[in-house]
């Protein structure tokens, strides 16, 4: 029975995480010695999944144009049923974690989000995933007739290998929604925390919102998203959607730079999945130094502008 890869799209194009999810799905199908198909809603460039060894895509070109968890879950459940799908691979993005539980309940499927690698066992299907907000891992057995694996962001990586990819147009017959979109606001032209390779984050050590140009200037040089610690969002210095940590957004980026953040256990939990962590803090006893890869003890107000300038020069050299 085949593997179904659920691909996220936006503005009629593949989302960036499509590459990693496709790579995971193809690797899983190979391990299971079965075929795999991707399903995508509204993606003009669906054929580009061929760069990641995907040979077949079912492309849905009717139904809601914007992400609609209910409608998409209904349609994917329908497709999975008709095609005897045994394994579904999806990302662990906010949208995926909206859709996947709906899908799992419809299919009576086992579901494990935040998988960090290819299943360690195929029978019973056993997935290693993060738990306790990145403070531990758990090995979860998935016992459904059909099971859903949510690939952790930036956990598996991308395997590029170009093959011929056939895109088959299908019509959604079951894409009904019980929600109506009233409005959507989204920043444009700036990296977001979920999608950025680099995140620059500021804490209370920056003393006030008027000093955030330090974070923003550094972020701009690095094409980074900006983030903040919980106290900063609680005090209203920055909006809540920048709060990363246990009760905020998770961060699993390649490079996380923490400026003036002491590193409370709840903050570290939220950012632990990042590959490389750099901390700049005047207090050498700040707990973040125990969790970071690189650290500078010193005054952020002196260091950060200098670092920004030096990185600008470094980037200019290419």
């Amino acid at each position, binding site marked *: 029975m085949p593997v179904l890869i659920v691909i996220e799209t936006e503005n009629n194009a593949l989302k960036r995480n499509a590459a990693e999810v496709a790579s995971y799905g193809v690797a899983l199908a190979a391990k299971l010695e079965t075929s795999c198909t991707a399903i995508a809603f509204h993606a003009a460039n669906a054929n580009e999944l061929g760069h990641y060894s995907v040979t077949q895509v079912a492309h849905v070109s009717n139904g809601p144009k914007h992400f609609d968890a209910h409608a998409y879950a209904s349609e994917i459940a329908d497709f999975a049923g008709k095609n005897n799908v045994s394994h579904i691979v999806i990302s662990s993005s906010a949208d995926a974690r909206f859709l996947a539980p709906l899908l799992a309940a419809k299919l009576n499927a086992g579901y494990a989000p935040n998988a960090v690698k290819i299943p360690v066992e195929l029978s019973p299907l056993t997935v290693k995933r993060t738990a306790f907000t990145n403070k*531990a891992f758990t090995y979860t057995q998935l016992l459904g007739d059909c099971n859903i694996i949510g690939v952790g962001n930036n956990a598996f990586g991308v395997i590029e290998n170009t093959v011929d990819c056939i895109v088959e147009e299908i019509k959604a017959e079951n894409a009904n929604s019980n929600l109506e*979109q*009233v409005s959507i*606001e989204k920043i444009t032209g700036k990296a977001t925390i979920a999608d950025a390779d680099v995140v620059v984050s500021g804490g209370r050590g920056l003393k006030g919102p008027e000093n955030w140009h330090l974070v923003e200037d550094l972020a701009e040089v690095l094409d980074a998203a900006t983030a903040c610690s919980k106290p900063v969002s609680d005090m209203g210095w920055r909006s809540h959607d920048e709060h990363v940590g246990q009760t905020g957004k998770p961060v699993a980026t390649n*490079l996380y730079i923490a400026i003036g953040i002491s590193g409370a*256990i709840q903050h570290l939990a939220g950012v632990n999945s990042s590959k490389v962590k750099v901390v700049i803090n005047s207090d050498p006893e700040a707990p973040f130094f125990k969790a970071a890869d690189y650290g500078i*003890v010193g005054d952020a107000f002196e260091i950060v502008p200098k670092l920004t300038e*030096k990185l600008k020069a470094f980037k200019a050299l290419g």
Partner: protein
Amino acid sequence: MNILVCISRVPDTTSKIDFIENDTEFNSRDVQFVINPNDEFGLTRAIWFKEKKGAQVHVVHVGTSKSDATLRKCLAIGADKAFRIDTPALDGLAVAKELAAFVKNNSYDLIIAGRESIDYNGAMVPGMMAALLDIPFVTNCVGLEIDGTTAVAEREIDGGREKLKGSLPIVIGSQKGLVEESDLRIPNMRGIMQARQKPFEVVTAQEAPAATKDIKFERPAPKAEVKLVPADDLDQLIDLLHKEANVL
């Protein structure tokens, strides 16, 4: 308006995460258990609806009597009635099935559950429950208004917000932003005394089967010591990030 808030009991956010029985069981010794923070944001919003709009607020939990103190706390901060569905919480789907069956036997306009628990981070229960009940669901909810039989819920998306409208009954996945941290209630003596008189019902479970099973836990590998770079040698940091870490 009748509101149901689904409560999960989790280790306090500062807890040391440790395992016993050959890493097959969470070590709850010396661990303080609390209301799952994402549930608490939802409960606090529900209590706001009670105080401002006269809603009735019930809380429900799937678990054993170990959780009774957590449910009493919900009553102490303002919930009117607590239910405990008497079975161990096996996994997200099993819990969602228990809750869906409970909701079917009762009548609620608004059902709130935290977007995810901070222990197993499944983020499964609210969505699964909505799908089983075939009613609307909005998660990562940071704004909620109810007007007659219509709910307008705002969800946090990557880099922004989306506003969605649906008919009641609706399931909401709550998180910080639905109310602020400073809005959270601390039980006072009066609330604690009143909670003792409030109805607390133990409900027989359906014994819904699980679709997943956690068989083993693992602690992250110990981290190598931080490499400190002198504040006056930022070129060294750039060099390390470029050549050693390969992230520039």
